[in-house]
């Protein structure tokens, strides 16, 4: 439990530092906030009122503490561009991004696990070498290139999907899945390669251990050995990795959201950057970074639960 406690203390410290860093980053950026809010031709009184309203004359730490206090209560301020509360705007968009991440993880794992198993069963065989070649190609194709390629083939040429647009799940569950399928596959391919490589290596090592030879000597079928005996002890690497990539992906869907015109959090952030919408950017960056840190924290704890050895290592 002490380990969880120290991890937790560290988590809080990282969260404070990350939010403060993003607050400073947004505040110190060139370009006057008031000008970006009111436009260049605002009167001096209006400017002064806006400065007062945004508490811009207070020192940075004071502003941070006030902002953080509000943020803890779920109030991330109001976007000066759309007059919409930032937390509301993020709430609308975050589900698109989360759905995208989740779907791409399901696709990636369901492709990577069989690939890894077939490769690991006969290391060095033609199948193994072919699969690792395919994985290398997947690793080398940037997600945005895959996205455009898929769009060119399945949406433009074959017309099976719409090129852009998002259907809400509550409106049409199947249409929702359809609108997210191509973007999810585009995000998944790189993950497939990473997962398959790690799981294959772990499986090769597991297959060499005594208990597998014992299971084989007892006359178990290969299928049973893989599914019942080998897969579980080999899965620690891939479990950790998928946790880490979920955290990474939450902020990594930007380009795919852009290409398929999906109303997700990544697109929202880039729009906020381009529009100099400081409050919206601040809110989005904080949600993304805090999400990333929290997922990593959960993975760390989960890792300790799956593999007790790491607890001893981390405690040192």
């Amino acid at each position: 439990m002490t380990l969880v406690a120290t991890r937790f203390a560290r988590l809080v410290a990282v969260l404070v530092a990350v939010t403060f860093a993003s607050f400073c980053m947004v505040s110190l950026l060139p370009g006057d906030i008031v000008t970006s809010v009111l436009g260049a031709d605002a009167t001096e009184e209006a400017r002064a009122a806006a400065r007062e309203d945004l508490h811009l004359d207070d020192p940075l730490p004071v502003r941070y503490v006030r902002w953080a206090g509000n943020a803890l209560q779920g109030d991330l301020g109001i976007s000066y561009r759309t007059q919409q509360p930032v937390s509301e705007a993020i709430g609308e968009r975050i589900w698109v991004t989360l759905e995208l991440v989740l779907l791409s993880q399901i696709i990636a794992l369901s492709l990577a696990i069989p690939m890894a198993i077939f490769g690991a069963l006969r290391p060095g065989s033609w199948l193994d070498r072919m699969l690792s070649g395919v994985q290398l190609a997947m690793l080398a194709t940037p997600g945005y290139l895959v996205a455009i390629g898929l769009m060119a083939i399945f949406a433009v040429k074959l017309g099976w999907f719409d090129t852009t647009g998002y259907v809400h799940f509550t409106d049409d569950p199947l249409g929702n899945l359809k609108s997210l399928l191509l973007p999810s596959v585009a995000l998944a391919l790189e993950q497939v390669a990473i997962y398959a490589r790690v799981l294959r290596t772990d499986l090769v090592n597991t297959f060499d251990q005594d208990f597998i030879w014992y299971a084989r000597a007892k006359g178990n079928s290969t299928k049973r050995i893989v599914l019942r005996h080998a897969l579980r002890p080999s899965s620690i690497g891939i479990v950790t990795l998928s946790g880490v990539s979920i955290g990474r992906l939450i902020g990594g869907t930007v380009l795919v959201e852009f290409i398929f015109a999906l109303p997700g959090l990544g697109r929202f952030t880039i729009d906020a950057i381009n529009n100099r919408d400081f409050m919206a950017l601040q809110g989005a960056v904080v949600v993304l970074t805090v999400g990333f840190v929290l997922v990593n924290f959960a993975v760390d704890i989960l890792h300790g639960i799956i593999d007790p050895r790491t607890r001893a290592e981390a405690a040192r």
Partner: protein
Amino acid sequence: MTTAMSAAAHNSAVTATDDGVLRKDRLGISVWLSMAWLAGLTLAAIFADLLPLYDPADTRAGIPLSVPTSQNWLGTDSLGRDLLSRTIYGARVSIVVGLTAVLLSSVVGGLIGMLAGYFKRRVETTTLFAADVLMAFPTMLLAASIVAFTDSRGLVTVVLAIALIYLGPTIRIVRALTLTTSNREFVLAARSLGSGNARIIRREILPNVLPTLMSMMVVAVAGAIVAEGGLAYLNLSVAPPTATWGSMIAAGKAKLDVSLYPVLVPGGALFLTVLSLTLIGDTIQKRQARNLGAI
């Protein structure tokens, strides 16, 4: 990279690969092809002005969106500019950004990481904390906000933005490498012979950290080129009219229903470059792991 290669060449003859199969230790044809592609692309990018190419900004190079012809070997974009020429000139941006960004983050991150791993305690805790905070920011958004907010879309800004992405991971990895190295006997031996910290870091730690760092740099260059392409796609890399692969792909995407070439040509160049770098980096890393295992 050269150290790793010559070391690998030294141990050639027959070695066991990681799967236990005995195989002649030669560089495969794919690695040679990768090196040829990278060398060809680099030479073409350097000597682009001397090659008989169209001006990359010339909108009268051919009929807009034409397929490959004898005039425009790889077709033209929607403004009638020659795709071959634009792809070669675009390679300049990719290569320069990829190399300098990774070099910058490796030198700075490597130095910080070595100090953190060597001196441990407060230095280490502080550095790792800073690296963690830096790595909590989504990479694409971090780079995008830096370019967008500095309001200058010059080469330097893009390089700095992408170097920042790699700073955190580099610090962490170099620190871990330094930590294992500084526990080895030869470091203790050097210290007992009276070597100071600076000398130990320079003579004992650095030569042991460098090969691994360099092989990772090869793969990182591929990542940096991809990141630059992504920024350019968002219109946040070097400003037009300079040709970049990412901006070419973004422009081509709008005309996907008419012609595939505006996406296919720069996309193919990007794919081959990244594949080559990944393949070479992968090969070097495998050899290093094997050589380490042999010791």
